[in-house]
């Protein structure tokens, strides 16, 4: 019996390749339309994928630190807020986990947390978030609220060598902590509707979070009653040590970018950490371009690269569905929990994933079937936790 894993997909605009919008299969004038996203989400949902992440950033140039990111006219531009887009997709999907990206430097943690709890209610337990630490200079200018922050990776390429980036990760940790605390602030049975006493609420089962950190404080309980998952799934993308530590400390699930299957072991070692309530789920990213033949795939890839070269940390697979399944199989043997596929082109490569990759991976016996677990958290094998505040009372 081979190891079995989950498959996820990463959705972003016209796809992950910067020239993808120029392909004839692309729908470049619909990238911010409800019909486009409804179709993508339904394809992913219908294919039985575990979850879809949705990219986001708070500037026209995305997360780029390039100074001309906002002025160049050759890239697909225009975005929808990912948390709201995920909420829109909740009623039109059935099983798909919805994991929007949220930056931690600017939004109010309270708004973000209640937005995710609401997504969890609207999707009946399928909400997650991918937290992104820090901000770009363009994002800061758009907000006009904080002048200081990261200006890019330092020359060493290591996060730990830049105090602004380290600070950004500490702030992201606080946001993750507040999301968890607010999710726990209402115990499951806080709403009593007791006609006898006339009380709607048992105030003993709703708790102020009283969070005071280095960057902000949040005092009260959530305005949103506890949601189906209890805690929406917190995820992060990590390429190196500081982000690995952030994920190990604050995330339920981490997306990593091994250069090949052989690199997985070292990453898992780095992620291993002692103090966790539940295991950290690890998904490896693969950027994929799928055609019927390798020759066709290579031709498309070369055309795209000629128009705008892609730079990425993720392993790239250009080939047939069988080639992608082979890569997934190799990763699966290394002890990961899932693979997140980044379609080079949308919707073309998502359709190829749904029509060809998923069925072949399933036939190869490397996919975990849907076990019918009611929530995303339970589908990835994580228990629904009781409110921390409830447990404290039991212990007292």
């Amino acid at each position: 019996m081979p190891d079995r894993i989950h498959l996820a997909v990463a959705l972003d605009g016209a796809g992950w390749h910067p020239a993808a919008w120029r392909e004839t299969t692309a729908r470049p004038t619909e990238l911010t339309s409800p019909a486009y996203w409804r179709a993508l989400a339904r394809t992913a949902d219908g294919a039985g994928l575990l979850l879809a992440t949705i990219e986001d950033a708070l500037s026209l140039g995305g997360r780029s630190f390039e100074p001309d990111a906002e002025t160049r006219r050759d890239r697909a531009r225009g975005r929808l807020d990912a948390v709201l887009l995920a909420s829109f997709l909740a009623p039109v999907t059935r099983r798909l986990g919805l994991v929007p990206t949220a930056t931690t430097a600017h939004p109010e943690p309270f708004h973000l947390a209640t937005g995710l709890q609401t997504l969890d209610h609207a999707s009946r337990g399928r909400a997650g978030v991918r937290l992104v630490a820090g901000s770009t200079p363009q994002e800061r200018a758009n907000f006009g609220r904080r002048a200081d922050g990261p200006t890019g990776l330092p020359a060493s390429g290591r996060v730990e060598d830049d105090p602004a980036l380290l600070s950004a990760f500490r702030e992201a940790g606080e946001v993750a902590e507040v999301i968890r605390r607010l999710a726990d602030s209402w115990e499951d049975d806080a709403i009593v509707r007791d006609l006898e006493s006339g009380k709607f609420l048992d105030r003993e089962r709703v708790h102020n979070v009283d969070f005071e950190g280095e960057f902000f404080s949040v005092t009260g309980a959530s305005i949103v009653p506890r949601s189906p998952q209890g805690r929406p799934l917190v995820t992060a993308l990590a390429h190196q040590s500081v982000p690995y530590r952030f994920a190990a400390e604050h995330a339920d699930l981490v997306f990593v970018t091994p250069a090949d299957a052989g690199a997985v072991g070292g990453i898992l070692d780095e992620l291993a950490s002692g103090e966790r309530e539940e295991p950290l789920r690890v998904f490896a990213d693969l950027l994929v371009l799928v055609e019927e033949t390798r020759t066709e795939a290579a031709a498309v890839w070369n055309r795209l690269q000629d128009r705008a070269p892609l730079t990425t940390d993720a392993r790239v697979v250009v080939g047939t569905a069988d080639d992608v399944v082979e890569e997934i199989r190799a990763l699966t043997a290394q002890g990961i929990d899932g693979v997140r596929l980044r379609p080079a082109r949308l919707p073309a490569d998502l359709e190829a994933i749904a029509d060809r990759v998923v069925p072949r991976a399933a036939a190869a016996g490397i996919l975990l079937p849907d076990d019918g677990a009611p929530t995303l958290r339970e589908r990835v094998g994580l228990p629904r936790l009781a409110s921390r505040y409830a447990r404290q009372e039991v212990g007292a």
Partner: protein
Amino acid sequence: MTRRQIHLAAHFPGVNNTTVWTDPSAGSQIDFSSFEYFARTAERGFFDYLFLAEGLRLREHRGQLHDLDVAGRPNTLSILSALAAVTEHIGLVGTLNTTFNEPYELARQLGTLDLLSNGRAGWNAVTSSDAFHGANFRRGGYLDHADRYVRASEFAALSKALWSSWRDDAIVADAETGAFLRDDAIARVRHESRLFDVDAVFDVPRSPQGRPVIVQAGDSPDGRDFATDHADVIFSLHTEFSDAQQFYRDVKGRLAARGRDEDSLKILPAATFVLGDTAEDARERSREIALQQVRPQTAITYLEQIWNRDLSGYDPEGPLPDVEPDTGVETAQGFAGRHAAIRDRVGQLREQAAAENLTIRELVIRLTAKHTFVGTPEHVASEIDRYVQERATDGFTVVGHVTPHGLDEFTDRVVPLLQERGSYRRSYDEGATLHDLLGLPPVDASAAGAASAPVPAATR
């Protein structure tokens, strides 16, 4: 001559004592199915928009969470986005605070909702300056009371500049040349003031209605100024006929000085209703509902919020407390506007109770559970129509008292009568935006902020 058309908004029941949770038919206030049911009912009744209030902290009473009323609600923007997916025509309007948000982020969220709903988004802009709510936010209760509307007004102006910074035809997506955007697709928006320092390039394309509809709910002179400067709709509390007419004339009269047409601002007061097969039947139901809305403990708690002291020893069915209010430290938090001039307020209440010979509970019913329209469907329809034809309002924001079925009866029994009168739509126009539904003038694309300049294209 065509009749003036009635505009109706549907207020999802909130977290105050007017929302009855003790009724056997009362459902969940948080499950998505409740919102979906309510939205579909409103759409079946051809309402202009669904309206959601906001609360940014759970309400407290005497230092503890208030536990008598419905508590807990969704994040406004997230639930409206989800509703955009299950509705086709109805506007989606939410209350969002100008103090605890930043313009770029809120404008992109509202812009997102506007695109996801094909032009049906609206924003009820409210202000705050209090530290109680502020304690949940990065900046805390930092804003001087006097600056609330300064910030709100600049916030709205800046948001409008962002929403109009993209040309309608910004995206060319020319695969051959590789030009995704035209060169002058987007204007840069600068806003530098005491309260803001924004140098922004917006990242959300323009929506089918140009920008979301803006609603305003405050009644102060500052609030009225904000409304005449920025709002498309006023959610007022003026429901008594002559008072409503006076308010209507005052606000509409201010528009000309702002260069605005009378039809560019709609006034939709909050209205409750109770229907019955006969007038007597309706009055009885109104009485029963009021007693559910103001239970004995609700009445005492309500007075405690004003008196600011423990009144649990008083009989709710007896006379008003003979003790004086405690005007020291505030103990009730999150309840709107009751702390100014406590002693004056108590004096007024005593006068009212004496004049009408009211018990504590009867007084609180008068204050919080007086129903606007009570009668047969014919009576309620004719009253609503009279208010609109005689320019006391442009319509109403209908507030039901049970979740999620509070709109059913109105939709089934009153709406058809309004349609028969020729004062209310019988269908939605295909592709109508919320601006269209409200009969507002189209948004002028050339109204882009004066401080904006096109973002130059890079030379590559």
